[in-house]
């Protein structure tokens, strides 16, 4: 009887705490640090948690609280959301799971069966869900967008976004802005024509669509030779950001296709390898900046657009911080797209710098060739989709980096056939991608490439410190209100550094590659840290 009453009172407390997640709450996520309401924690995508109970002094007392072992052998790339005491994550490829964030016990699972026609290039993965009201949203690897009741896991609507048979997929967490849920499509290795689209949160009806490759008559169409725009890729596979004051949403766009042979697509190939700023109500483009014009190195600009308000050369400025796969760190004015700074954060040999307008100056001969050309950074990039972090406390920008890393780029013919890979051969690297990597076994030399967390001063692009790892990293980074930095790597370690100087403070061996970004939340006044590694989700808290 006593146990029953405790059970009911727990239920009541949960019911009292639970409230609809208004869009206003999402925009002001910083006011409720106990929750984690979007993929990157807030609309500025800083992956910074103001929580400060776990500190550099007590972080050594972290202990594992629970583990959720996914019934999937795929990479666990999702960042969970925590909403008023409930955690939501995705078990690959497309099962939404609602859990108790204190115990890890499952409330419910929504299982979605993707079409057998789905063929994502690089794993049947998913990086998380979005929430507004009482509804969760998930993109699927067969390019559907589904809405699910956050209380009982029942589907509410299911919209076909694109054709999986043609190579389209959705792998990133959607972004909710006002009454719309926004997604982009992956498939850059299959000759898709990319787009970003907004859907009504209540009905799933498409509201606007922005083609990442302009069609005939649209500005930028002239940057594609002949019919190459029809199969030029320019995919989207990492969640964008939003500035409510400017009402602009920012998205990174993937590489042009075929990836390694640009002969058939002469021109800059807009908006591939670019960031675009779109009006959140209409999807109309306000500005763009192209990091890698006429890319032939698979330098997707699919990094999380990190927004920051900083004092830039004496004046407060709304900027965007961006460590690109192409090896350069950038600062852009996010109101206008103006190029403010570009500086390598790893070895770069394809460009020597930038002209006045911020266009990279190419180094002659550094292009894919039939006999092969060594290019730094290599095919996985100086960084990739792995979430960086900006700490407003330290003022530093933290990048998961691949150092001393190159690939040999070989050029070959590519013929388009719907649903088939359309890349023009494959680069060769000593270090494999996340699918091909040795993961557990490493006998490499340092000059063959290694991973690092690199801390950059956004004002100068200079490196402040570096934490070196023996192997490379596919892990995102989170910083906290107590100047802790959490990250991991392919070796399977999850660790805490002092965000001010890079000193290692704590580590745990999770036994599988960390291919996700850490996040933090609190329940009943206790802070937790969550990260996915291998096939499981691990949650840590202070020893009691």
């Amino acid at each position, binding site marked *: 009887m006593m146990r029953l009453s405790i059970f009911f009172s727990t239920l009541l407390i949960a019911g009292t705490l639970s409230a609809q997640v208004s869009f206003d709450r999402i925009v002001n996520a910083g006011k409720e640090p106990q929750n984690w309401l979007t993929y990157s924690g807030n609309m500025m995508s800083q992956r910074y948690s103001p929580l400060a109970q776990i500190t550099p002094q007590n972080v050594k007392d972290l202990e594992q609280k629970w583990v959720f072992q996914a019934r999937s052998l795929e990479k666990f790339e999702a960042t969970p959301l925590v909403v008023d005491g409930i955690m939501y994550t995705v078990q690959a490829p497309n099962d939404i799971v609602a859990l108790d964030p204190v115990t890890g016990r499952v409330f419910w699972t929504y299982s979605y069966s993707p079409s057998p026609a789905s063929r994502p290039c690089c794993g049947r993965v998913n990086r998380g869900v979005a929430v507004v009201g009482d509804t969760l949203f998930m993109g699927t690897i067969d390019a559907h967008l589904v809405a699910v009741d956050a209380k009982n896991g029942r589907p509410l609507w299911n919209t076909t976004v694109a054709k999986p048979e043609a190579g389209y997929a959705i792998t990133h967490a959607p972004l909710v802005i006002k009454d719309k849920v926004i997604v982009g499509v992956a498939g850059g290795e299959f000759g898709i024509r990319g787009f970003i689209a907004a859907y009504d949160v209540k009905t799933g009806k498409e509201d606007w669509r922005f083609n990442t490759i302009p069609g005939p008559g649209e500005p930028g169409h002239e940057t594609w030779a002949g019919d190459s725009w029809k199969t030029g890729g320019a995919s989207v596979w990492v969640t964008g950001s939003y500035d409510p004051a400017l009402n602009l949403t920012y998205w990174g766009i993937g590489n042009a296709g075929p990836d390694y042979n640009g002969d058939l697509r002469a021109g800059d190939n807009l908006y591939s390898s670019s960031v675009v700023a779109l009006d959140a109500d209409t999807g109309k483009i306000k500005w763009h900046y192209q990091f890698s014009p006429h890319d032939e190195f698979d330098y997707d600009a699919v990094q999380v657009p990190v927004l920051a308000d900083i004092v830039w050369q004496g004046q407060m400025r709304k900027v965007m911080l961006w460590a690109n796969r192409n090896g350069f760190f950038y600062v852009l004015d996010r109101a206008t797209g103006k190029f403010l700074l570009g500086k390598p954060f790893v070895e770069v040999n394809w460009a020597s710098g930038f002209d006045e307008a911020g266009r990279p100056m190419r180094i002659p001969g550094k292009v894919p060739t039939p006999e*092969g050309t060594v290019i730094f950074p290599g095919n996985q990039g100086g960084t990739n989709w792995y979430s960086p972090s900006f700490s407003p406390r330290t003022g530093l920008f933290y990048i998961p980096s691949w150092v001393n890393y190159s690939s040999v780029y*070989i050029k070959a013919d590519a013929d388009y056939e719907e649903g088939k890979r359309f890349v023009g051969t494959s680069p*060769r690297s000593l270090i494999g991608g996340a699918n091909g990597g040795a993961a557990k076994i490493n*006998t490499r030399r340092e000059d063959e490439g290694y991973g690092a967390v690199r801390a950059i001063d956004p004002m100068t692009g200079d490196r402040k410190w570096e934490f070196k790892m023996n192997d490379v990293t596919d892990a995102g980074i989170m910083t906290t209100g107590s100047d802790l930095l959490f990250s991991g790597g392919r070796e399977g370690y999850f660790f805490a550094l002092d965000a001010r100087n890079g000193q290692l403070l704590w*580590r745990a061996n999770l036994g599988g590659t960390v291919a996700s970004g850490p996040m933090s939340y609190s329940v009943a006044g206790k802070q937790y840290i969550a990260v996915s590694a291998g096939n499981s989700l691990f949650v840590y808290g202070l020893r009691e």
Partner: protein
Amino acid sequence: MRLLSLSLLLLLPVALQAQHTYTPADIQEGGRLFRANCVLCHGPEGDQVPGIDLGHGRFRQTYSESALIKIIQNGIPGTGMPPNNLQDFQAEIVVAYLRSLATAGRTVTGNGNAARGKVIFAGKGNCASCHRVNGVGSRVGPDLSDIAALRRTVEIEQSLLDPNAEVLPQNRTYRVVTSQGETITGRLLNVDTFTVQILDSKERLLSLQRSGLRESGLVKDSPMPSYRDKLSSQELADVVAYLATLKGL
């Protein structure tokens, strides 16, 4: 006809240029796939089917690289060439491996006698002091029980003559000095930011915390001595012939 001649002329230079564009690991994996899928008909040197010498780019007609990849994947209907369940990348590195055959040449030590080679391996060559074959010999060096399934005879020969020419990543040597001053050397099995795992010269599997070591790092040169001046040309050929029989269980 003109096209055919041109293609034949083009094929070899491309092959020669392309050999440097694949990593040793790519070539090795391509060779493994070749042996797993192709060697039954084409033979280990790729010259077993009449009129076809894969190792020297000789086919019954000329094919581009992409055509070769398609043939590997889809086969040639109406012939003995079946389709193979290989991904694009796998088929590409099989072709890369075949190109490496074309440019790697043949052994320089001539024909050997495997039976004599086995005696030299165990005796004069003292090979078993580092290497193990079918459960006999030391584990300190690479186990050679299936070396012929992994490496071509020309590569085996190169390892005997010039061991430093190519040390595969899995055969790198690591040296540490412990906090007590003990020097330990062994084959590097795995290393991460905080620990290192080796098989040391006493055949111990050791896992060490790197922070507790005075010194640690890879040894540049292979511990394998060159046999160029230790064995005669015929003896070398005999050892190569013996190793070429070791194809595993």
